[in-house]
């Protein structure tokens, strides 16, 4: 009997196994078909058909928008990457017929275009035509960040993204807005609750995970794959911008709360200082941007942006940070040429470099150079009379764009950590007496400069 049992058990087991195998097969098949159902087939067999579908969808879309006189330009990183390789040829023969579908047939799920908001009227006719042409479309609206500020304004929501879907391809149209600070901004793509999360695979979009800031691009009308499109005149520099475009909005709501607690200094001195600091920052930004040196708001200026969206009136200087790898010898002469004489220079390129320029009426421009280590970033300080060295440690950070006093500038994306490292957990409380040698919570003693180097590393003018 035992043996029979054993055999029965075995038989049952093998049966179960078979059933499982079958079930799994079915499940896999079902899963695949579901993916196909999302209109983004990965079946390799129809490769060429897919290729031309993409081209056709792009052509249809371009037809749609040109029939409504909407000026869009191509910002698709994949296609621009391909275009960039042949840019000379494309530029030289703007009308030449192309031999094969080289760009718009490249395998991808989306083609991304940009639209400048002010160049079109928000007309409903576009969408009706789009529907007639077979497009399904999705519009993503959200609140207008240009109304954010110290005043509590609320306006109509503005369109940030459009997605037009046809067959197995989709067009992602990113709406760019002009912001004060002479740059373009696009919003994040956020789906509201009722929206179809499977309309397209949103995760594969190149734009929309974060808001982004861009320079106003010069455009070039080209003909690629027999389609006439506008592209950024310099695709490679545009592509570079794409990867570092993340934009942070100032925290106006928190800033308002801050001013509730600590009313703003409206004295004439404060107004005057803010005015000077603003113009100094504008001048510094112009100078460094011309040199192509990347910089960010540091120390008190960064705190002012983060905490109150403005210059802190009692801070008395403007602080910028620059990675030492971006250091250029031209920096000092360029500032001098801009009318900002060097006030002091501490440290050297290899260690603890810090420059200070004299702005108008005692407003100082401090530039700290940051040194990257494996697990942290630091900058140095030097006490002139004793030759003592200090080190200010920061957790690693990346750079984001923001808008500050009508300027597009960098700030550390991880601003809170940066500010907390510098000012401690009590950064929300204004402090008027600040000692740069002891007050910062991230300061460390870093020895003393050897006396024979003093002439070089402690220069005061």
């Amino acid at each position: 009997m035992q043996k029979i049992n054993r055999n029965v058990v075995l038989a049952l087991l093998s049966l179960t196994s078979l059933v499982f195998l079958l079930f799994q097969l079915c499940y896999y098949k079902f899963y695949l078909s579901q993916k196909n159902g999302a209109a983004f087939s990965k079946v390799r067999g129809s490769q060429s058909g897919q290729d031309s579908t993409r081209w056709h969808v792009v052509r249809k879309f371009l037809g749609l928008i040109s029939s409504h006189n909407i000026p869009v330009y191509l910002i698709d990183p994949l296609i621009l990457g391909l275009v960039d390789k042949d840019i000379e040829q494309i530029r030289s023969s703007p009308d030449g017929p192309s031999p094969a579908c080289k760009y718009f047939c490249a395998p991808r799920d989306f083609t991304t275009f940009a639209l400048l908001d002010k160049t079109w009227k928000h007309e409903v006719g576009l969408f009706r035509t789009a529907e007639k042409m077979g497009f399904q479309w999705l519009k993503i609206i959200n609140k207008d960040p240009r109304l954010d500020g110290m005043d509590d304004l609320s306006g109509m929501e503005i369109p940030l993204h459009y997605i037009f879907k046809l067959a197995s391809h989709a067009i992602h149209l990113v709406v760019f807005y002009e912001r004060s600070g002479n740059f373009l901004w696009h919003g994040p793509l956020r789906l509201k609750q009722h929206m179809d999360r499977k309309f397209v695979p949103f995760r594969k979009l190149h734009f929309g995970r974060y808001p982004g800031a861009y320079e106003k691009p010069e455009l070039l009308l080209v003909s690629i794959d027999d389609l006439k499109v506008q592209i950024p005149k310099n695709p490679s520099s545009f592509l570079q911008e794409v990867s570092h475009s993340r934009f942070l909005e100032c925290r106006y709501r928190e800033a308002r709360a801050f001013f509730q607690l600590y009313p703003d200094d409206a004295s004439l001195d404060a107004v005057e200082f803010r005015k000077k600091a603003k113009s100094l920052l504008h001048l510094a930004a112009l100078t460094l941007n011309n040199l192509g040196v990347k910089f960010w708001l540091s120390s008190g200026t960064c705190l002012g942006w983060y905490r109150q969206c403005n210059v802190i009136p009692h801070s008395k200087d403007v602080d910028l940070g620059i990675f030492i790898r971006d250091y250029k010898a031209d920096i000092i002469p360029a500032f001098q040429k801009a009318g900002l004489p060097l006030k002091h220079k501490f440290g050297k390129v290899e260690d603890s470099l810090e420059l200070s320029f004299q702005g108008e009426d005692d407003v100082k421009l401090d530039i700290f150079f940051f040194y990257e280590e494996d697990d942290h970033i630091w900058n140095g300080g030097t006490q002139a009379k004793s030759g003592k060295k200090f080190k200010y440690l920061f957790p690693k950070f990346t750079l984001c764009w923001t808008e500050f006093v009508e300027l597009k500038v960098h700030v550390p994306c991880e601003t809170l950590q940066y500010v907390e490292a510098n000012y401690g957990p009590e950064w929300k409380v204004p402090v008027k007496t600040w000692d740069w040698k002891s007050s910062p919570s991230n300061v460390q003693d870093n020895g003393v400069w050897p006396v024979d180097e003093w002439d070089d590393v402690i220069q005061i003018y």
Partner: protein
Amino acid sequence: MDEWKPNPAVKPHKKRSWYLAWKYKLMNQRALRKLCQTGAVLFLLVTVIVNIKLILDTRRAAYEEEEESAQDYDDEMLNVEVPRHPVNNKKVLDVEVYSSRSKVYVAVDGTTVLEDEAREQGRGIHVIVLNQATGHVMAKRVFDTYSPHEDEAMVLFLNMVARGRILIFTIKDEGSFHLKETAKNVLKSLGSQVAPFLSWRDMWTFVGKKGGEVYGEKHAKSPALSTWGDPVLLKTEVHLTSVEDAECHWPDTELNRRRKRFCSKVEGYGSVCSCKDPTPIEFNPDPLKDNKVFDVPVAVIAGNRPNYLYRMLRSLLSAQGVNPQMITVFIDGYYEEPMDVVELFGLSGIQHTPISIKNARVSQHYKASLTATFNLFPDAKFAVVLEEDLDISVDFFSFLSQSIHLLEEDESLYCISAWNDQGYEHTAEDPSLLYRVETMPGLGWVLRKSLYKDELEPKWPTPEKLWDWDMWMRMPEQRKGRECIIPDISRSYHFGIVGLNMNGYFHEAYFKKHKFNTVPNVQLKNVESLRKDNYETEIHRLLGEAEVLDHSKNPCEDSFVPDTEGRVYVMFIKMEQEADFTTWTQLAKCLHIWDLDVRGNHKGLWRLFRKKNHFLVVGVPASPYSSKKPSSVTPIYMEPPAKEEGAVAVPAVAAAEQT
């Protein structure tokens, strides 16, 4: 493995023999069999486990893909849908109306839609209009029919209300003193039995459908002159109609969809909502050739006066060269109806959470609006600032287009304004003439971005300073000697009466007779001569050709200026120093022009028209133009009336500061 499989379908005895044969055969290789069995069991178990795991994995992966495909893109703020009142499903509304000396209220289905128990306020007849299909409040008005002319306004309003709407009336305090026959007849025609006999301090409530049935009426007579009627409370039911019956059947266009949305929400805008031949909401005025202000943003500063805003936007959108895309209406507060008006015209509107009080509130609203304007249009070098109580001249943009380059090029300019403080019917004549003035008139003006961003915005009065923005802008610390360009005939018209700083009398006296240009495409003639130095040359030329008037006559008399046309006359008044406006104020008073403070002067010179002649007034000796005075002429001195010195002069200044 199939070898091992027993066949359950075979019959028992057959199965048994088959099984025995197997048993026999395998007994011989017992060890091998055992091994195979164990191996098979193990293999099967592993298969099962692997299978289960695989299924779980696949399922989780699929699930994650679905969920995550948009996870990063979810809106952080969950938009909780507010459940809407299922008003539509209801067929009957319960309406409660209360009328008494000190309090009125109206409740519709238990929701209070009107409650007024403030003292010294809200006297008269309160009118509420409900949508007959949805029961929504479409308009709320109060007509102080204790005072004159308010009954006329009520008649006007009631005539504008569409047929079929539900009207609710209730009296607070007193509503019959100036309720004239016409108004009573209108109320009677609505079905009121009591209206014709309403008298002093009666309490009265009435609910009825315009052009239809009466749902209820209650009335309490005042027993004596000194007492009020007893409070009355009317409770009644109103039967709703279907939405289709309540709406007009306009052709389905984008414009009419806007109109429909508007007309189903609010009442009291007249023919814009009439089913037959509604008044247009798109105007398509002629474009301007070479329009220099096409890209200049237009900020309309508004409060909660939607009827004014409606009138204002109509005139603005009818002006030649208007660019609706550049217009933003800034509403001071979360008021719905002004926003409805803005949306009717397809414009963009922004609401501003009010901070501060009274004048400071207006001032903060101005600041927020200007800041936002330059944020929304960062490329703009200028902004046109308008208010909701202005009519805009048909050539407003043409006027600006011809003059705006001056503001860009001439540093000594503070603004361009469409308003001439001294441009009354009897003192303005030439639509093509411009002036430079040291005062800042406002009421439709152009602001330079650099002036705002670099100078005004950083030191704009903070909320706790209860300052008027315009008075502040006129202060020498801000104006710094700069001047504004104004036209002789204003390009805006101030129709506002019920403002923060206005009362009916004030408007009548100072604004009603203001001249307003209605001629399109006026070619301005002296634009270049308005530059700082050119203007001096121009003035000297004018003074050179001007005939000196007879200074022995009374300048207030009409005969002071000869009965000519098109001549230039000059008179000299006494003006001891720059700030001495004693004589000017008296002259302005008797000429019936703006006399509450000094406006429209340029270096002690005023330019206006009298009897169609250009009329120049020079203050001697403070004005640099005093040298043009012939030595024989003694400047006229006019003394302020002695009695009024103390009594009126002070309030006059106070009033001026309020304007």
